[in-house]
């Protein structure tokens, strides 16, 4: 089964993901890829509270995500991958994990980040990571919900081609 969704969202598994995307995609696995949460299981479990009852959820590190058994699990399930930021998907793709499309669904305000969309705020490091992902062949676009319009990378990085 091809990966249903790879999404950058600092809220990880929350209403928009479990209900908005979940309804459209019917995933059986929500895999949170975050070194920070994989190292802190108690906090990781909090982010899995919103996983619907007909699916399972796990938090893994980037290294664990790259392991053959995790790759096999993702291929076996109807999987949604969630990343808290852009570092994790970049390292995953650099490690050889196949991600053809990356959905930017929520990168909210933090000091030094400028608004691009109501749910996307970027700093220079984010923009550099987005360019790297695009250069690695990943199709990057922002969209909060499946019923809302998609914003291609060029709209997130004005003045630069993807």
């Amino acid at each position: 089964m091809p990966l249903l969704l790879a999404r950058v969202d600092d809220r990880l598994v929350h209403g928009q993901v479990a209900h908005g995307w979940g309804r459209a995609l019917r995933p059986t696995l929500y895999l949170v890829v975050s070194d920070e949460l994989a190292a802190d299981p108690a906090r990781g479990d909090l982010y899995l509270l919103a996983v619907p009852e007909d699916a399972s959820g796990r938090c893994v590190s980037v290294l664990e995500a790259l392991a053959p058994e995790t790759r096999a699990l993702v291929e076996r399930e109807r999987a949604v991958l969630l990343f808290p930021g852009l570092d994790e998907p970049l390292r995953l793709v650099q490690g050889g994990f196949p991600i053809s499309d990356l959905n930017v669904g929520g990168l909210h305000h933090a000091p030094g980040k400028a608004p691009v969309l109501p749910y996307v705020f970027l700093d220079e490091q984010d923009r550099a990571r987005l360019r790297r992902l695009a250069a690695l062949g990943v199709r990057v676009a922002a969209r909060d919900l499946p019923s809302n319009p998609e914003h291609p990378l060029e709209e997130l990085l004005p003045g630069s081609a993807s």
Partner: protein
Amino acid sequence: MNGSAGGARPVAILVTHGVLGEELVRTVEAILGAQSEVITVSNSGLSADGLRDRIDAEIAGLPEGMPVVLFSDLAAGSCGIATRRADPAARTVKRIAGVNLPMLLEFFYNRDAIPLEQLLARMEAKGKAGIVLY
């Protein structure tokens, strides 16, 4: 507009204090995407009879045959009482009080897929299950 459960899609009418209903719908739309067949009625500035009349008028303005679910915030408050007193002629109207987000998500998520009676029971269960002491 027809639900796959066999009947017409049920319409939601949220009868609440102040702007609670509007904000609940706004939040549902932030989670599920834009919704249609949903109406909000606020009790602000309305007497008991005025609120009841507003609900009746909203229902009367809907196409015939469309079932209605009247949500209210407080069962024993002005909104809950007005939904009990609403008296729509020749139409299926269901009433549920204590409206909260889990209940609404269940409704909007499944209103095209699950027969209304069954859906109402699930909405009640989801609404209650969403209250957790920890």
